[in-house]
């Protein structure tokens, strides 16, 4: 154990805001007077040219300078009194820099802030890459001009959706929430996916989600991770809000043949019956390290079940294909969705009510995350049910875990009768928040053991 008292917590709220976000490549303007050529993207765009050049130059200098101390690990962030700068080199010589304005925080959280926003920065790149491919490919295809166009188009909108104040440990994990399901229903889903892929052989990959949680991914883990992020924080919330508002009543069943179904496209044509319907789907890039595939992303949903079908971008998709897919998938998916719902309700009744514990669980191996602290995520904010200070302690414990390779357990007594417990076993991390007045260390330890025995009895967790 390494019990530690989190003392001296300042009540000052930190509300980081985005000051600058820029992407540059030092090789593009090596000569004096050509510095502007290095800059591929700069936010905000209305900043005066010389200031842009100055800021980029400063970053370049810091990176160069720090490289002399540790060539393999260049600087990741720079702390100043008011600002934090985060550096990230996703592809050789391409640097993304994010500058946040935030007030000084107590030193304990400092390290964690770096981890969180470092992760946010990396996610920015991953999201860009998902929809645009790598910087290098854009350069090959259309030179700097194409790359800057793409960056402009993507980041202009994307940066507006960053919700920096609500970033926390979950952003660091970038995990995937898996939908708990019994074996038989899972096999039915497998069977469904296989059948669809067989009869619509254009489909290369399929992913299946229910209630915004993943059940099956035909994509590799890293690609799924970012696609999942996009689906759950952007695409699904955009579509669920009009649903909740009762607008454009998507819950009217469609009739395919003689089968009633609730299937509809979340990407592509919003209404197949519309003669003007457009059959354009977002393109995504996966396996960028090796096969580098560009794919159409079709997201199709029936009730709470959503399926992503990915088809090589070189294929032309038109009305005929969409109608075929709708006719094939709609009725089956509707049935499957109600099956899953039924099974889920049975399982919930059997396993009893949700636990009283507040915890976050993450497994690095399959990226599985589970949180009873976070409320449902919406497009705008992610809500937590605990005080931000406690969240910061979680982050701090995580930072400790990152530093050591071995398994360990950390128990923290917070100021407000709360106990925070962090446990790391093999590739898994578990954080528990207990609110027990007058509990002592031993009791807290016992309580966590009990939690592990009930909630995590089917995995190997070292005591």
């Amino acid at each position, binding site marked *: 154990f390494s019990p530690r008292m989190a003392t001296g917590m300042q009540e000052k709220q930190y509300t980081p805001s985005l000051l600058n976000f820029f992407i540059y490549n030092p090789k593009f303007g090596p000569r004096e007077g050509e510095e502007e050529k290095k800059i591929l993207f700069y936010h905000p765009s209305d900043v005066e040219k010389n200031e842009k050049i100055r800021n980029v130059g400063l970053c370049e200098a810091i990176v160069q300078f720090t490289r002399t101390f540790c060539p393999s690990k260049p600087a990741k962030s720079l702390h100043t009194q008011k600002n934090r700068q985060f550096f990230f080199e996703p592809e050789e010589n391409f640097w993304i820099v994010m500058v946040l304005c935030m007030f000084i925080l107590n030193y304990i959280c400092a390290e964690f802030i770096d981890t969180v926003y470092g992760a946010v920065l990396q996610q920015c790149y991953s999201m860009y890459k998902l929809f645009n491919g790598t910087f290098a490919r854009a350069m090959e295809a259309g030179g700097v001009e194409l790359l800057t166009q793409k960056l402009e188009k993507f980041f202009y909108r994307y940066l507006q959706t960053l919700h920096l104040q609500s970033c926390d440990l979950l952003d660091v994990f970038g995990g995937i929430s898996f939908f708990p399901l019994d074996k038989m229903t899972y096999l039915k889903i497998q069977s469904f996916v*296989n059948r669809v892929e067989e009869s619509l052989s254009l489909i290369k990959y399929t992913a299946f989600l229910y209630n915004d949680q993943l059940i099956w991914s035909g994509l590799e883990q890293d690609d799924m991770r970012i696609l999942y992020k996009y689906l759950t924080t952007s695409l699904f919330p955009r579509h669920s809000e009009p649903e909740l508002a009762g607008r454009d009543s998507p819950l009217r069943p469609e009739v395919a043949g003689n089968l009633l179904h609730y299937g509809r496209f979340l990407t592509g044509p919003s209404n197949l019956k519309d003669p003007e319907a457009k059959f354009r789907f977002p393109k995504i890039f996966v396996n960028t390290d090796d096969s580098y595939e560009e794919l159409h992303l079709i997201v199709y949903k029936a009730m709470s079940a959503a399926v992503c079908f990915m088809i090589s971008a070189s294929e032309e998709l038109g009305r005929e294909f969409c109608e075929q897919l709708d006719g094939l998938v709609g009725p089956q998916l509707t049935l499957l969705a109600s099956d899953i719902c039924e099974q889920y309700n049975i399982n919930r009744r059997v396993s009893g009510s949700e636990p009283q514990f507040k915890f976050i669980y993450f497994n690095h191996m399959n990226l599985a995350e589970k949180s009873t602290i976070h409320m449902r995520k919406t497009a705008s904010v992610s809500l937590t049910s605990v005080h931000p200070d406690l969240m910061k302690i979680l982050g701090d414990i995580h930072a400790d875990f990152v530093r050591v390779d071995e398994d360990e357990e950390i128990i923290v007594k917070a100021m407000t009768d709360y106990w925070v417990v962090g446990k790391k076993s093999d590739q898994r991390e578990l954080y528990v928040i207990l609110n027990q007045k007058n509990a002592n260390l031993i009791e807290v330890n016992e309580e966590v053991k009990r939690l592990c025995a009930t909630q995590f009895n089917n995995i190997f967790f*070292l005591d």
Partner: protein
Amino acid sequence: MSEEHYLELCDSPVQFENASSVNNVFFDEANKQVFAVRSGGATGVVVKGPDDKNSIAFRMEDKGEVKCIKFSYENKILAVQRSPKSVDFINFMPDLPHSEFSQECKTKNATVLGFCWTSWNEIVFITDQGVEFYQVLPDKRSLKLLKSHSINVNWYVYCPETSVILLSTTVQGNVLQPFAFKCGTMSKMSKFEIELPVVTKPAKIILSERDIAVATIYGQLYVMYLKHHSRTGNNPGAEVVLYHLQREGACKRSHILKLNTTGKFALNVVDNLVIVHHQSSQTSFMFDIKMKDTDSNLNIHQPVLPARSIHPYKIALTGPAAVGSQTPVPCELYSSTWSVFQPDIIISASEGYLWYLQVKLKPVVSLLQDKSKLMEFLLRRRDCKMVILSVCSQMLSRGDKGSLPVVAIVFDKLNQVYKEYLEAEQSYTMAVECGPSRGSTAHKRPVRTQAVIDQSDMYTHVLSLFTERKDVSHKFIIAVLMEYIRSLNQFQITVQHYLYELVIKTLVQHNLLYMLHQFLQYHVLSDSKPLACLLLSLESTYPPAHQLSLDMLKRLSTANDEIVEVLLSKQQVLGALRFIRSVGGHDNISARKFLDAARQTKDQMLFYTIFRFFEQRNQRLRGSPNFTPGEHCEEHVAYFKQAFGEQAFIKPVTL
């Protein structure tokens, strides 16, 4: 074309001397014996059948023309009818006199239409005025009347399998009165009427015995009626009407088999299939009463397959010319001299052959395109196993687009039968374990028919070969394996480890490790020690396999030793110790093993901790911190002393 003949005559027919002016031939349906009676028996009687090996030859006195001749069961007593009034008997049991004795029918003025043996010594006389049930007393050379019943009889049909005799009564002959015989008892079953086609000139016998047959189909007794339609009407053709004859209750019309043609027909039942031979077209129809036609009313059946003729058959020439090696000549099929007997016998008296009719399943496969129907059909057949397995292989090898749903249906059909068998087997085992039941009925072990296709059959004959195929996409291979596992799960059949191994092997071969990970995450591949070990071996190519394996071992809860080994091999000595303590096994572990592992880490403090743990254990268990010689820890004690000094040992407490 020859591939399409789904009916054939058996290879080894029973051969007998063909019927002629001096040789009369009789067939006994009960014992399936052919009697060749030369000159009324004086120049010899040769009995052959049911297979060609057993034949009996004897002579008997010529006392007039033989009308009917039959052995009782096991050839104990021979009964011969030569007159319309009486039946003669000859003992065939050793130690009993062979001389004939005779029995006249009891009813006055009655004519004996025929007789049927119902056991080795019980016989029924059917007369035009009723039935008489006798017991033969061979030693006393006399018969004892057990029971009789008066009723006007036109003709009768006997089903030896069930010992049921059907009597045709009334003027039109269409009211049938069944009687059942069993161990000296005769029971009258409820009579029923055969619905005749529209009658123009009544008051004469219309229902002919040629149009009635009795047979057991799927364990139930049916009366089959060949219903000819008058040509004048706009009826599409003749049909076979099946009446279900039950021990209790009325006989009900249950199935109609549509022939859609007219002419002369004959009926056989082979492997629970009703075969209708049509003479003019020289083809046969095949019906399966369990096959439901979705597009027609319930229990109206169309032929399963298009009508085909019986497979061409060649016979050696008979007669005086047939000497030496004769080239066989084609046999005339559907000949007018053929006699057809239930259930599956065809006799050509003029050529001296008795054949069993057989159904060939292979040609059915290509004729019946609907795989679901085909599978249902095959599963109901007797020798179906290899054909079913080859259908499965064939179905998978083609990998047609959209074949997965069909594959799923086929697997489900196979597994349903498999599951039913497993359940029967299980309840049998349970019943046996619970001791003899109160009732006298002994537990019957369920019969494993060929239709039970288990996992090892599928693995050996279909799946293991299929996964090796290079011309089929791995996506399809995995989809098929998962479909089979899904089907097994759906029927709650425990999946065998070798199937999981096949899945894993295939996934690893195509580097689909994330897929494997997801399957394991949802416990699609059930936990087992062998599977956990297999995963451990994958760790070098896929590191997360280590975690998956440990989780699995943990869930098994019987693999604590394995977990300790895994952790020690990873030099997680403290982790291993904490684990074994958490499950309460730390008093039984080998100190030496842990100390060895701790030494290997070259971590002094770790070694100290582990050593101290075992000193404390020794103290607690034996009252002394010292290791016993049996623990073989001397080397580690010496090392501890050298590294930390004498004073670091726990001092033995002396009270």
